[in-house]
């Protein structure tokens, strides 16, 4: 993958809200008729392979539902609660490696199906009736059996991990039962109703999975919802650890080992200029000042941890964002690819080294400044990873009628 031979693109049809929850789909998650992932050879644009998902929902906004690590691709089907792991082979094929969700091990489905054949005849007829009513899709995903009353594989792993953890915290049986009742069974239905929100790779064998309620899964700002982070080993199919999104322990790991949450290939030079509080003193000072100013430590930790799991390729690898080279206003511009408030003033980049002077400015929006100073403007930036070239897109949202969005795209380059 270092050779930059392939490009991965996704296309989708329109969103259908209020889609009926059929075929094992989660109620409340919208549906998209067709999502296609295309693997292109960048040399000539030839489509080498594609993977289609029908009547499914993968969050393609800012690549949130997809994570690329080396040659492994994780696609989260929010609707069917399955994490599809695909591999991009050198030959140019997208190969399905595993599907985590309903089943964890490759042979789970076979095992359950072979045992189901031993069921009574009446039950079998009932099952066949239900299967017949299933929607006919061209599928690459494991369709869960609607007549099956088992919880999904990943959910079972999660619940049993929580149970065992709580059981082992006490030594006496009466205390154990009490603890389980208060911490586990009281919230049991909430835990059962948890859905996978987002996934990232930690390495080739481990996933960091964020679980939350159905409401938060599709809303844009889910920060106020409670969520949980689990570390899952794909090979052993075990949950290694499980934290609430405000857990001290998880925050400590994030503070100390931030860089390792950005899973990039070991050989990649991609991380060379990316500043984080784990590799850059200025970024660390910034974090410390936010921490000191925070009124509530748990709120602060929750805010920091809300960025987990990270989206892949969400940080620009451009050296212009290296905090040991340049100083810039974090609120106006930074390596993360999110929209931010835009002002009419140009954004200054100041040298961190002597002579500590202004090096250059980046001004989004029209040269002469915008016509209406009061209109809300947001900007986003795209910096070339290697060349001294950047794009800025400034959108003006006119709130009075007619409601019109005006976009100004600037190309910034070094002379």
């Amino acid at each position, binding site marked *: 993958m270092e050779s930059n031979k392939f490009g991965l693109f996704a296309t989708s049809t329109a969103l259908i809200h209020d889609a009926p929850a059929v075929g094992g789909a989660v109620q409340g998650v919208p549906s998209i008729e067709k999502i296609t992932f295309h693997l292109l050879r960048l040399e000539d644009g030839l489509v080498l392979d594609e993977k289609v998902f029908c009547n499914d929902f993968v969050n393609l906004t800012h690549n949130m539902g997809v994570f690329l690590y080396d040659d492994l691709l994780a696609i989260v089907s929010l609707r069917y609660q399955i994490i599809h792991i695909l591999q991009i082979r050198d030959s140019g094929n997208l190969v399905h490696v595993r599907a985590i969700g309903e089943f964890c091990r490759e042979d789970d489905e076979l095992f359950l199906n072979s045992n189901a054949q031993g069921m009574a005849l009446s039950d079998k007829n009932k099952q066949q009736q239900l299967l017949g009513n299933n929607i006919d899709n061209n599928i690459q995903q494991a369709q869960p059996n609607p007549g099956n009353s088992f919880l999904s594989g990943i959910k079972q792993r999660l619940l049993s991990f929580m149970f*065992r953890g709580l*059981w082992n915290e006490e030594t006496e049986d009466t205390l154990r039962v009490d603890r389980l009742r208060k911490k586990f069974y009281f919230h049991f239905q909430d835990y059962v109703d948890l859905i996978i929100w987002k996934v990232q790779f930690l390495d080739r064998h*481990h996933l960091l999975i964020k679980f939350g309620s159905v409401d938060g899964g599709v809303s844009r700002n889910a920060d106020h919802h409670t969520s949980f982070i689990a570390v899952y080993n794909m090979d052993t199919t075990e949950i*290694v650890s499980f934290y609430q999104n405000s857990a001290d322990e998880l925050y400590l*790991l994030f503070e100390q*080992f931030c860089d*390792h949450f950005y899973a990039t290939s070991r050989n990649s030079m991609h991380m060379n200029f990316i500043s984080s509080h784990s590799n850059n003193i200025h970024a660390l000072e910034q974090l410390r000042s936010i921490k000191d100013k925070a009124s509530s430590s748990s709120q602060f930790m929750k805010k920091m941890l809300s960025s987990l799991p990270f989206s892949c390729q969400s940080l620009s690898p451009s050296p212009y964002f290296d905090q040991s080279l340049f100083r810039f206003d974090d609120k106006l511009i930074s390596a993360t690819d999110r929209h931010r408030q835009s002002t009419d003033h140009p954004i200054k980049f100041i040298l961190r080294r002597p002579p500590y002077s202004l090096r250059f400015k980046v001004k989004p929006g029209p040269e002469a400044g915008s016509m209406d100073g009061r209109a809300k403007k947001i900007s986003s930036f795209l910096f070339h990873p290697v060349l001294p070239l950047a794009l800025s897109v400034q959108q003006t949202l006119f709130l009075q009628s007619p409601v019109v969005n005006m976009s100004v795209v600037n190309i910034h380059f070094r002379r």
Partner: protein
Amino acid sequence: MDSGLGNWPSYDPHNFSQLRTSDPSRSSKMAPATYHPTHNRVVPPADQVINTEAKHILLREIYRRAEEKIDLIAATSPLQLTPKRAASDNLTPEHGSKQPRVST
């Protein structure tokens, strides 16, 4: 010395005797294959191979904390639901120390 570093002075004439000049066919990212001690105060085991740990530090830390919780319970309670887990394959004490491994 025949090492391509020219006739640079060195304490021990054997120090750079095995160094090969950079070969254009080899990637410059490859580290030298062997290290030789420059003193003989402590002699490393003859078959020692130092490798990069496959699991990175974050995962090692996550696993360590998980093991710690289980070991704590195992140490303090006689009875428990889960049997004591077998020791993990990786028996390194703490991160930071290199472990000698037999080269395959």
